[in-house]
């Protein structure tokens, strides 16, 4: 190969490498958009359970939940100890209803950071908007196999301090765009929580995680398993479900 040809080949190789990097950078954000899109339903209804395990044992809470778009949702707890308690979420607002006290509480500010029924989920997690790219910058790490599924491995770095976990590493399924695994860390790089999908189901041609586990890495044997027993997507819902009046019914 002549010297000129060699130069041309190197040039072409570098151009390909440059564009492939560009494609990867764009893909990382596209992946996140696809992931967000996959998690949003026009409407949904589900029943399920939250099993919280710590060193004192296991506590199971069952619930029914309705959602509409990215902002409106209503959860009603059905387990004996919490029966009738409701959480209503509208855009930027969250209300709790306690039937025994017939009391309606609006949660705001620091109160949103409290845990939901002692689980590893906070009320803030429920109010959080589902547009990940507004909160995080994304970078593509590599590819990996999780649960026999090919995944993109992405690192999300928080754009502001208002995000609970400053750094997230997530494994997003290449085909279905569901997050199979996540590692949530502090700004100093300390791993705090791990997320894992234990079971998925195909509903209306969409693969949906129906059993997930969040483990608290700092607390030994502390984790929360959320299981969806029944899920209906894109069903007609009464618009009044997501109003304050509905909480009192």
């Amino acid at each position, binding site marked *: 190969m002549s010297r000129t040809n060699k130069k041309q080949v190197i040039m072409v190789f570098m151009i390909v490498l440059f564009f492939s990097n560009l494609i990867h950078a764009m893909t990382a954000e596209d992946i996140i958009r696809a992931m967000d899109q996959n998690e949003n339903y026009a409407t949904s209804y589900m029943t399920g359970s939250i099993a919280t395990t710590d060193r004192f044992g296991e506590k199971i809470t069952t619930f029914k939940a309705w959602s509409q778009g990215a902002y409106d949702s209503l959860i009603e707890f059905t387990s004996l100890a919490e029966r009738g308690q409701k959480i209503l979420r509208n855009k930027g607002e969250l209300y709790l209803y306690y039937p025994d006290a017939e009391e309606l509480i609006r949660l705001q500010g620091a109160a949103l950071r409290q845990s939901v029924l002692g689980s590893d989920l906070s009320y803030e997690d429920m109010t959080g908007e589902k547009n990940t790219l507004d909160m995080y910058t994304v970078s593509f790490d590599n590819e990996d196999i999780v649960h026999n599924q090919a995944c993109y491995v992405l690192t999300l770095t928080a754009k502001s301090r208002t995000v609970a976990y*400053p750094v997230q590493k997530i494994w997003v399924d290449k085909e279905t765009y569901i997050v199979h695994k996540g590692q949530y860390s502090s700004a100093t790089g300390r791993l705090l929580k791990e997320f894992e999908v234990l079971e998925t189901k195909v509903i209306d041609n969409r693969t949906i995680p129906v059993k997930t586990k969040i483990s608290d890495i700092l607390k*030994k044997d502390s984790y929360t398993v959320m299981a969806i027993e029944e899920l209906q997507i894109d069903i007609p819902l009464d618009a009044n479900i997501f109003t304050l009046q509905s909480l009192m019914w």
Partner: protein
Amino acid sequence: MKFIISLAFKNLTRYKRRTIITAIAIAIGLMMYIIVDSMLMGAEAESMRNLRWYETASIRIMNTDYWNDRLSFPLDEGIQHPDKIIEVLQKNGYAATSRIQFFADMILYGEDFGEDGNIPALVTAIDTESDNDVFRFEHTLVKGTFLDPDRHEAVIGSWFAEDIGAELGYHITLLARGKGGFFEAIDVKIVGIVNCPNPNVNRSLLMVPIQLIDDYLAMEKTVTEINIALSDRADINEEIEKVKQLVDPIEKNMTIVGWEELAQDFLAIAEAKRGGTSIILLLVFIIAAVGISNTMLMAIYERIRELGMMRALGMSDSQIRLTFILEAGGIGLIGSIIGVLLGVLANIPMVVYGFNFSFMLRDMDIGYRIQSIMHGSWNPISILVAFLSGFILSMVSAWIPTRRALKMDIPKCLQYR
């Protein structure tokens, strides 16, 4: 009049045993009152001191939004220019220090504590240079050293350390939300244990250097509170006004409160206990009044024929009534003198040595900020009130039985058996 006084005195000495028994009943009641009042007053004074020295300081400056939402300890609502405020306060002769208080999940490790676990903890981040100008923890260190501002260190209350089994050199992790709401984990080593006289503090105290928290929780030099120490005699409201005028030009939207506002739980309990003291006093007086009335009733019934004779000889009802009232007053006076003397004598060891309630206070929160020894205090007004009440009430309680005897006719009195 001289005759009436002399007659009353003679009657007192005629029935010595009865006089002494009634006087002792009054004396014991008054002595108990003086001791209980002394203990409660002493506990209150010591609690107020321990509150100011270890918990609230004399005055606290906070952002108004933080004050309104203080139960959540919101780090986002801090004081933006604490250094400037402290500089101005110090220039004006105030001892001031800044602190950050926040809730954290305290993670305990099996390697040190024997088993893994976690408990919620209220963490106090202190400025190691100026904190001892306002609070008095330097004198309470019982093990290890105080905090080094540049190290990942913690100082813990001795009761808290006992409860979780902590020793010097043990490591813990504090999982907390930083300013804005992000999670952060901070590893610290326990380097000191303090035995704080304020039980509420000793039961939960966990102190770390403010520099560490500023860095990890991204506080950007903001703090949640500035504490000011004043002398015990300072007029808090007047000082709050002065501090307001100094703080206002530097930072707006500040709330400045005195220790009484911060320790309302204690003040409510102290108020209730003061009510309890009044009930004790009332019970003492009821017992004394019943005793005196009974004694006088017996004396009057024994002397009804004597009364009839005195009335027949021309002594007026008011003179007879006065004789009995003076006799009762005499019993009250003897009882009050003995009661006050016994009360004062019994109070001396209570004031000097106190009474050790640690067996009870270790695991029980009675509201008072006293950890073990409850000291009495001298309260001259209470002693005077006890003395005068014993004396005057005795005379008042003689009124009713005398009135009853004076309603009888003279012939009936003379024929009375």
